[in-house]
């Protein structure tokens, strides 16, 4: 499903270099729920951005469904993100001028799905995360947890192969966090591949596999189930 080969991300600051991730390699098969953990600055989010094609690694290769994604043209990378990947950001990243329903519909419309069909799929995704009754609300009319659910619905609405979640519970209270994580577990049970970055060890325990980073390298990679 996703194969990472020796990727590094080096940031330059004046004459000095910061190796945010350094020569990491691993593979994730379809349907796996992977938690990437580590302390702040360990490189876990940077790794997620490279795998999610939001950033380009300095070295290395990333294969998604057999396609080498690092050297793709920008338009093809965008297309791959649109069709194959879903994102859930730490601060929800919902679009403020769109309602919950419209937020979920946008990627579907971009895929060329007809308006009515996109609306149906979006409602279905919102129903899955328990937000069908708030679908006409703007993000400003929703709580943080509800906004994160919109973000999840948007990520799953177009049925992506992989969902990337960057500290999805960082801004939520413990009760809402548990509810969001429960949603992830249910999605994973249904066969969804999920890669989640978290610095909370107890949340990582919900995943099938936990990859721990420190100073940009993998220090442990354990299967839990």
């Amino acid at each position: 499903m996703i194969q990472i080969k020796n990727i590094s991300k080096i940031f330059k600051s004046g004459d000095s270099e910061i190796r945010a991730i350094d020569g990491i390699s691993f593979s994730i098969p379809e349907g796996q729920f992977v938690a990437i953990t580590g302390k702040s600055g360990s490189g876990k989010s940077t790794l997620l951005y490279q795998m999610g094609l939001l950033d380009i690694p300095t070295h290395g290769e990333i294969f998604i469904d057999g396609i080498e994604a690092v050297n793709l043209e920008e338009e093809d990378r965008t297309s791959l993100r649109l069709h194959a990947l879903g994102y859930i950001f730490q601060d929800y990243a919902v679009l403020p001028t769109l309602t919950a329903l419209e937020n979920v519909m946008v990627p579907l419309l971009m895929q060329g799905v007809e308006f009515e069909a996109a609306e149906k799929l979006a409602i279905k995704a919102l129903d899955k995360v328990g937000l069908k009754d708030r679908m006409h609300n703007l993000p400003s009319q929703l709580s943080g947890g509800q906004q994160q659910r919109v973000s999840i619905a948007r990520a799953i609405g177009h049925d992506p192969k992989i969902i990337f979640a960057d500290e999805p519970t960082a801004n939520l209270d413990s009760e809402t966090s548990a509810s969001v994580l429960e949603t992830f577990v249910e999605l994973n049970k249904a066969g969804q591949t999920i890669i989640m970055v978290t610095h909370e060890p107890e949340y990582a325990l919900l995943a099938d596999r936990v990859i721990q980073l420190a100073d940009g390298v993998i220090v442990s990679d354990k299967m839990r189930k």
Partner: protein
Amino acid sequence: MPKKTSWFHRFETDLAVGGFLAKRDLKRASKWTTFLISFVMLFTFLNLVVVSGILVGLIQGSFDQNRKFDTGDVIISPFQNTDVVNQSQQVIQIVQSVPSVQNYSYRYTKGGSVTADYRDVLLKDQKANSMGTTIAGIDPEKEDATTHLSSLLVEGDYLKPTDSDSVLLGSDLLATYNTNQFPGFSPITGVGIGSKVLITIGGSSKEFFVKGIVKSKINNVRNRAFIIESEFRKLAARDSLNVNEIAIVLNNTMTPDQAKQILIADGVGEYGRVQTSIEALPSFLIQVQDTFSILGNVISAIGLVVAAITIFIVIFVNAITRRRYIGILKGIGITPRAILVSYMWQALFYAIVGSLFGALVVFGFLKPYFDVHPINFPFSDGILVATVSGTAIRAGVLIFATVIAGYIPARMVIKQNTLDAILGR
């Protein structure tokens, strides 16, 4: 890898998604901001159409008045080396035979003078209360049917064909109406309706009662004295029936150029000069119109640049303050083209709203208003020249400039790194 779709399909999707985003952005934007931007576009449109329209209209008003009150659509006048239109009666017969001729009027003209207080004995060095002018002999009925002379009366009554001892005076001949005081110029004083004046042509003079006073922006009306043709010929001792001017008004079945060509083809060109009303205008008026047109276009162009800059700033501020929003869109796979299109839709919306309201103001209010209340200029009654086609072209220019002005800043922001935009760094 998702399968490749056709260029057209991708373009169609970009347009649809761009439209989806733009519609919601506009719907949920501040109403005041939308109103303000549309207001700026409205005034830009008015600047584009009205400023040049008024400048051109000042001269167009003069053209129209010359045609309506003096030359008609086509005018026949003597060649430069002759005093009269040769074989005038034959020419008139040809004019009558052209089917599209609605009315015509012939005029006899000659230089003369109008004198008031002519019975008073002048003291040494005292100037007579007199003014040199062109005396015109007309058929009052034909003249009125052709150039609506009676509509220009400001005092008194119009001439009847039997008014052998009456005269219509142009307002510029009278001090009451003409306050110009340049050296050597002295309009007649103390003359009104019923006054007696002495009209002299060559060595012959005759007393006339002032029956009416006509006022117009047209020189050939306001500077002339009009008497009936039979009295003119007696006074000017003109034996022949050759006239000096034949003004022709056409119905709508023929253009002035077509009528001119027919008259020339029928031989009129051998006896006199055949000109359309535009050709008969003083050349300085044409030059002034060209100059005003250039001036109008320059002012319009400045307005257009101001509008483009306004939209540029609005879209730039909008895009730069929503850098993260754009980053998220790109992050979730929305193409930069679709995002660009959304900004271009918004710019298009502002330009179309401004142009539509502008057109409504121009054709619903300003044009009808200026038609009824023209701007009072010394040489014309200025109107607003705004044709539907001309206005549509200007609206098109405004819309094009606005869309480009929306495209550039959006493109500048969209080119930024997606992740940096999402993370706000």
